[in-house]
């Protein structure tokens, strides 16, 4: 599965670890929420990066005590029309100030990239190679945004209030 980070396709340094596989001492891993919550200390005391795969029907509040030590949280889109992870992403970024990698996994298609970026995702396990290749262009598709979100883009509301020249209006 191609991984996009920073607008380009990159090598994925994380391994999705199966629940019955032994937790390795080295190397970045993504482990399931069950495994993580069963023994957070074991996962977080490793010297390499640990990330958790968080299902979209579980409160992200449960992650709160561990967020400053987690390197990555992967949120799941089981099908692309199931949008629960957008809410989880905004809560993690905007309310809980999570600064690690926020990764979208599952059915991740180019038509969601703009929404995902605005919700706070910064890494994307993209289903189709062609979508991954198109990422940088698709991410630029929209230049105006109505809603304030944690991505910090200036909204149309505020651009108007910054007194754009009269000529811009009709």
């Amino acid at each position, binding site marked *: 599965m191609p991984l996009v980070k920073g607008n380009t396709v990159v090598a994925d340094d994380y391994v999705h670890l199966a629940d019955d596989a032994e937790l390795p001492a080295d190397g970045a891993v993504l482990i399931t929420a069950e495994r993580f919550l069963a023994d957070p200390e074991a996962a977080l005391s490793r010297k390499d990066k640990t990330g958790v795969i968080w299902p979209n029907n579980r409160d992200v509040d449960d992650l709160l005590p561990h967020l400053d030590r987690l390197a990555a949280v992967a949120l799941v889109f089981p099908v692309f029309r199931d949008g629960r992870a*957008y809410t989880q992403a905004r809560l993690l970024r905007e*309310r809980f100030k999570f600064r690690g990698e926020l990764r979208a996994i599952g059915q991740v298609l180019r038509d969601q990239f*703009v929404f995902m970026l605005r919700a706070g995702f910064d890494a994307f396990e993209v289903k189709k190679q062609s979508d991954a290749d198109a990422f940088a262009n698709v991410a630029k598709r929209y230049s105006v945004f109505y809603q304030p979100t944690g991505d910090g883009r200036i909204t*149309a509301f505020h651009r108007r209030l910054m007194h754009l020249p009269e000529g811009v209006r009709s």
Partner: protein
Amino acid sequence: MYAYDELDRTIVNERVSEFRDQVARRLSGELTEDEFKSLRLMNGVYLQLHAYMLRIAIPYGTLSSKQLRALAHVARKYDRGYGHFTTRQNIQYNWIKLAELPDALADLAKVGIHGMQTSGNCIRNVTSDQWAGVAPGEVEDPRIWAEILRQYSTLHPEFSFLPRKFKFAITASDHDRAAIKVHDIGLRIHRNAAGESGFEVLVGGGLGRTPFIAKTINEFVSHRDILSYVEAILRVYNQYGRRDNIYKARIKILVHELGIEKFKQEVEEEWVQMRDGALALDAAEVEDIRSRFFYPKYEKLSDTPDELKKALQNPNFEAWYKNSVAAHKAPGYGIVTLSLKPVGGPPGDATAEQMDEIADLAEKYSFGEIRVGHEQNLALPHVARRDLPALWRALDKIGVATPNVNLVTDIIACPGLDYCSLANARSIPIAQEITRRFANHDTANLIGRLHVNISGCINACGHHHVGHIGILGVEKNGEEFYQITIGGRADENAVLGHLVGPAVPFDQVADVIEDIVEAYLALRQRPDELFVDAVKRLGVEPFKERVYATR
């Protein structure tokens, strides 16, 4: 009227360009139909019985003459010369080719209209009172807030993949013409004890398979807090709304299953954490939106000009005037409803020629503004009363002066089995037959206000649950049958109708409606007791007896 600026136009154009790319990827096979489906729906594109259907948003029902001409152009160039106005202040085209959809949308984008979020599991076109801004006694113009909500909800990054569709309606009048109690979120602008205007927020209303009247979640939310409050509701719904069963996925089910108290608690816990964030609205932001609404400069005119007094001697004009002209907040002006319900016609259809002519008349007589109501009629919101006779003659020429607004032939109907792939039964021919039965204006006038609503399936696009008389098409052993309800209403006293009895076959529906109406005429206390009030007083029984005694 709200004037789009460069920023609004940029979003619409960028959306068209995105959709053009999506259509190209679908046509090349790069996108599967399953992937394309959600994307096309969010641009108002359905795959119907015969062809793709394109649904265009008319936010809060306000259109300019220029925009209406663009709608006529699309009907003429890409469709078969007509469009269908719906109960959601939208217009639908039924015969557009997939490959031409991006061009049609690009043509509409030039005048700032689009198909964004007219379908799909996102926040749909925000609807409002079609008399907003001109109705006497309104607290304030609710379209300011509808526009704020439109902007807030357009391409919302968190709420574009909700469990199900999500509908807002907003009113600022005592008399609710926006049917807010049958919406996912209904907003009623009113004043609190301190005289400050704010929002009563209702949640969890809706029709369809499991109809509910919305419940009040908060009596008064301030202007400042309204966006954060609705975001809190949407966030709770996005997280906890059911996704396991499409029939249980609407917010009304979540509200029902949790109970309004528990739901409110969830919402307000969420709200407390975000109400002082970036969504808090300050007066400058609201003022900026308000400043981009255009309000006509009304002249000081007489309510009883000589032209009008003279014309009222013509009984045809008088009948239309009484039926179609409503009071306006500005003296000397009226709000004129244009009936899209001619006898024998499909409710809500307008031809390209009619649209062009109405656009011209709006320019001449209504400051270039047209409204679309959820009853599938149009309105000219600012007509000088002295111009009414001339306007009437022009409207009559193009067939939109039938004096039947709010009467038994002013039927709301979905497209039904004639167009819709979901339908189980036809709606349009039922509507056409009923309008023929009650074609005599004197009879219809004698009956008085009576709303007949027809849906061709349980999804209730014709809002049959809240019709004074509701007609629901169902299929039994390959035949069309119709369940009849009475006593529903969609206004400030909204209530769901009650079933009269067993479903009847297609060819008996109009007879049954006649029986019900005759029973009402015999049973009403006074000529001004409305049908729906008589049903409330008497219950279903006397009507049921009348209908089934001979069947």
